[in-house]
């Protein structure tokens, strides 16, 4: 405060600064002089501390009306006027440069619409399965199988685990055993329907938040002959929802019986990943439908709700100890996965979650931001480019006393008005395109204008308005008045910034284009790749009703239908079905626990499916001994390490089996995973499906003939044939959607980028119109001029391609790692993407440059 080295003392600087801040301009100088003079006097008379105190007192006493400068009143009047003025200028600008306005409007509004749509999708994805109570303490039990390739995670567990966890782990509050949801045929009176159903133990509805409209949560699933159905199903079956006490009859082969409805569920919320219409009791499933209840059979799904504060690690460890003890050896590990995490983080590698759908969620969040960013860049670029139109205006305003603040205000008003209009248009677009978006994404998103959206809108308006407007505002208001009015305005500084923004834009577009190409190629590869069997025109349907007892004669009749080339009983299911570890063979190591997919087979099924036998033969009813025969795939033989396997015996959990054949590896799950060990059992009477191959060309008539045949055997039963290929495509539903969505967004991104480039070129050529005229007069050809105008942009686009390609290579190869079988990244993907970006940019630029290059120079040079 006071400097001891100098003799002169100064009063408190802070207080002085305060004084200078509040004091009105015309009084400040004299009063400050007075203050200092008095202070100096007092320092001599009373000493520094006292003088300073009195100085502060003086300043405080000065803080009074009449001396304080006016902060508000005069400015307020100014503000509203300026506000009005800014608005008028904004609209005049729009009218004067309608093309710029349109480019900005189209870009920003599609950007906003994309972002909003993506936001709706993302928030729907993220909310999936989060609605159960105590979501944070709610876990699914997973089994980690030890395989040569590391741990394989699967949510199948032995059904016997339910009671053991209930009895032995006090940290667990509630344990529920369920099955996956499957389709069953359910009849009530005359009506029969295909219904999504599952089995669940008594406490199911206590821990899952699926509210009952009628019935008691704790008792509806206690009686073995009880069943709970949804309101929707009740309406479909009975035409009313008050159906307690009515009976329905689901098909379970020879175990079919009637169940009494004990409760009615509200239709399930859309953000439940599990969509079922009927719940039967676990008791019935476990006691009546499962023949091999042992610790090697992983037919159950177990969900636990922990006590508050319980450690899930500890629970997992205790559960693991139970299964080790029961199985006699550490063959599998159990782990707990948060129930609501499964949907987005459903992929596991070596027992650790490595993502899943979340990758797509993140991808689209990024893509949406990209698009909006590209659109904002357009706005920034066009405004700074247009600066030369505005510099005179700015210069004159400045010389008339406009402060930098008021100029910034003007430009920001302009951008906020634009972003408001864009948001409105964007909201309308969202509203219009939501149905299409829903059909692409397979969702039922609803667009409601609620409070959240209102707040989000305001945030979007401000964010875009300020972000996109800030650069032009700061840039334009910075010009030196004198230079501007003298006409010395040079555009160089802004040009570099503008160029780098264009580079960024096109780099982003290139990344999107390459990504879309890789995505598309991989999907094509996946869909057309040879899976080891022929899935064309292969149709299957369930064996129900009389087909179970009278299947043989149906199969004969089916084979005789014209248009059906072959048919067989089958237990084949896309995506697998049951898995077992219950296989022992000679020389098996104690620790190795190979997990086999298990399929029941009828006679001729392998042949029907077009699978190749590597060794041995297919099942045949000619050999009476085939009831104890077994067929493996190559992967299984390799995993077991059996040499010369044909004729050797192994011990299956159903008894001793003799290996009669080896089938070539085939892929029945998605190409995300390797071919896994698989075994076939010969159980023609016990298979679940009938499979037929139709002749090409008249599948429709063949199907209706099969339907007639089915109707004659099973009157009243719904006939629902499924093409294997459909099932196969369904495995890639997620990728398919991402694929088509990303195409749309990539096209959008490139269109918006080109719009910006278009605007920029139009402006640049317009500015150089005189130069072009003079060049032409001096003998330049049209192509010379086109080259002159294009080379600049070409350079920018080339740089952005150079930046974009490595980034997209990195992203692409990362994504392809998700697939066990994937395409190689070819150099020409990148070349093609780069080239197409360049060509699109050229076409955009050319429309403008050609026009101005062919212009008659007299026109451009006449006026001056």
């Amino acid at each position, binding site marked *: 405060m006071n400097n001891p080295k100098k003799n002169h003392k100064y009063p408190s600087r802070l207080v002085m600064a305060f004084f200078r801040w509040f004091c009105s301009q015309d*009084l400040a*100088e*004299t*009063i*400050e*002089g*007075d*203050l*200092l*003079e*008095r202070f*100096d*006097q007092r320092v001599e008379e009373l000493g520094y501390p006292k003088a300073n105190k009195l100085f502060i*007192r*003086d300043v405080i*006493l*000065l*803080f*009074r009306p*009449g*001396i304080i400068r006016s902060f508000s009143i005069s400015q307020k009047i100014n503000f509203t006027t300026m506000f009005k003025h800014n608005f008028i200028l904004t609209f005049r600008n729009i009218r004067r440069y309608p093309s710029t306005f349109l480019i900005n409007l189209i870009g920003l509004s599609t950007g906003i619409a994309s972002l909003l749509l993506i936001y709706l999708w993302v928030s729907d994805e993220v909310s999936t399965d989060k609605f159960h109570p105590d979501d944070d303490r709610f876990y699914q039990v997973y089994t980690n199988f030890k395989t040569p390739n590391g741990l394989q995670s699967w949510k199948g567990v032995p059904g016997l685990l339910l009671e053991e966890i209930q009895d032995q782990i006090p940290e667990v509050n509630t344990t529920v055993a369920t099955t996956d949801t499957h389709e069953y045929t359910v009849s009530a009176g005359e009506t029969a329907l295909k219904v999504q159903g599952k089995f669940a133990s008594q406490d199911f509805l206590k821990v899952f938040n699926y509210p009952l409209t009628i019935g008691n949560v704790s008792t509806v699933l206690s009686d073995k002959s009880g069943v709970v159905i949804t309101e929707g199903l009740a309406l479909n079956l009975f035409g009313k929802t008050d159906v307690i006490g009515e009976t329905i009859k689901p098909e379970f082969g020879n175990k079919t019986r009637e169940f009494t409805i004990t409760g009615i569920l509200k239709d399930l919320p859309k953000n439940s990943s599990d969509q079922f219409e009927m719940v039967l009791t676990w008791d019935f499933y476990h006691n009546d439908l499962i023949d091999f209840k042992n610790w090697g059979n992983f037919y159950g799904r177990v969900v636990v709700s922990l006590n508050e504060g319980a450690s899930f690690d500890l629970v997992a460890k205790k559960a693991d100890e139970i299964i080790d003890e029961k199985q006699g050896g550490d063959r599998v590990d159990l782990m707990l996965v948060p129930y609501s995490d499964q949907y987005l983080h459903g992929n596991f590698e070596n027992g650790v979650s490595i993502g899943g759908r979340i990758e797509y969620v993140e991808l689209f969040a990024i893509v949406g931001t990209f698009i909006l960013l590209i659109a904002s860049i357009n706005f920034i670029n066009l405004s700074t480019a247009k600066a030369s139109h505005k510099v005179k205006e700015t210069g004159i305003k400045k010389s008339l006393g406009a402060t930098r603040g008021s100029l910034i205000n003007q430009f920001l008003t302009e951008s906020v008005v634009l972003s408001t209009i864009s948001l409105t248009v964007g909201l309308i677009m969202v509203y219009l395109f939501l149905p299409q978006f829903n059909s692409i994404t397979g969702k039922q998103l609803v667009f409601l204008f609620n409070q959240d959206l209102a707040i989000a809108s305001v945030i979007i308006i401000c964010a875009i308005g300020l972000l996109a407007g800030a650069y032009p505002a700061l840039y334009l208001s910075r010009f030196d008045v004198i230079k501007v009015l003298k006409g010395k305005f040079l555009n160089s500084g802004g040009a570099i910034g503008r160029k780098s923004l264009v580079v960024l834009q096109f780099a982003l577009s290139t990344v999107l284009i390459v990504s879309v190409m890789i995505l598309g190629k991989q999907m094509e590869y996946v869909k057309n790749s040879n899976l080891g069997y022929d899935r064309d025109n292969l149709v299957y349907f369930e064996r129900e009703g009389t087909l179970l007892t009278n299947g043989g004669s149906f199969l004969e009749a089916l084979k005789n239908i014209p248009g059906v080339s072959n048919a067989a009983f089958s237990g084949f299911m896309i995506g697998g079905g049951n898995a077992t570890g219950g296989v022992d063979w000679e020389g098996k190591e104690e620790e190795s626990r190979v997990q086999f997919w298990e399929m029941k087979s009828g006679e001729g099924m392998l042949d029907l499916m077009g699978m190749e036998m590597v060794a041995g033969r297919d099942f045949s009813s000619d050999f009476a001994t085939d009831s104890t025969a077994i067929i493996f795939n190559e992967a299984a033989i390799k995993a077991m390490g059996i040499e010369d396997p044909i004729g050797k015996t192994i011990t299956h959990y159903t008894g001793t089996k003799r290996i009669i054949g080896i089938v070539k590896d085939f892929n029945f799950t998605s190409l995300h995973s390797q071919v896994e060990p698989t075994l076939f059992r010969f159980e023609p009477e016990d298979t679940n499906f009938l499979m037929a191959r139709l002749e090409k060309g008249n599948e429709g008539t063949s199907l209706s003939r099969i339907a007639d045949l089915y109707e004659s055997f099973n009157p009243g039963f719904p006939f629902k044939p499924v093409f294997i290929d459909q099932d196969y495509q369904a495995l890639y539903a997620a990728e398919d959607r991402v694929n088509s969505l990303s195409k749309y967004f990539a096209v959008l991104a490139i269109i918006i980028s080109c719009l910006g480039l278009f605007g920029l070129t139009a402006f640049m050529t317009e500015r150089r119109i005189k130069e072009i005229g003079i060049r032409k007069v001096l003998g330049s050809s049209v192509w010379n001029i086109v080259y002159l105008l294009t080379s600049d942009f070409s350079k920018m686009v080339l740089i952005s391609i150079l930046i974009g390609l490595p980034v997209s290579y990195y992203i692409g190869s990362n994504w392809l790692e998700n697939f066990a079988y994937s395409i190689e990244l070819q150099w020409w993907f990148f070349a093609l993407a780069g080239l197409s970006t360049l060509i699109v940019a050229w076409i955009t630029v050319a429309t403008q440059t050609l026009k101005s290059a062919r212009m008659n120079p007299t026109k451009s040079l006449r006026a001056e």
Partner: protein
Amino acid sequence: MGKNHLGEFEEIVMLTVAILHGEAYGVAIIEEMETRLKRSVSIGSLQVVLKRLEDKGFLKSELGEATSVRGGKRKRFFTVTNVGKDMLRTSKEQRMQLWNAVPDVALEFVGL
């Protein structure tokens, strides 16, 4: 009352400005008042009054030369305008009239 009325403090300030005759600036006025009237005055209250009197047209001011003292800040010197002088005179006359009208008796000290 409006323009034709002088407050007590305003009158004192104007008189002091008149006394200083051309040398009247902030601190000088305050000191003059302190020495003559033993009345302590803050810069704030004085400046407000000076500004008000100037607005009313009773005082006028001009800036002096900058000097090395006072942090190089210029002084603002005040002088009484003709209107101001009129006003002071009127005010004085009004008082004198009142004084003259007071009977002598009324102003004698009565006892203790």
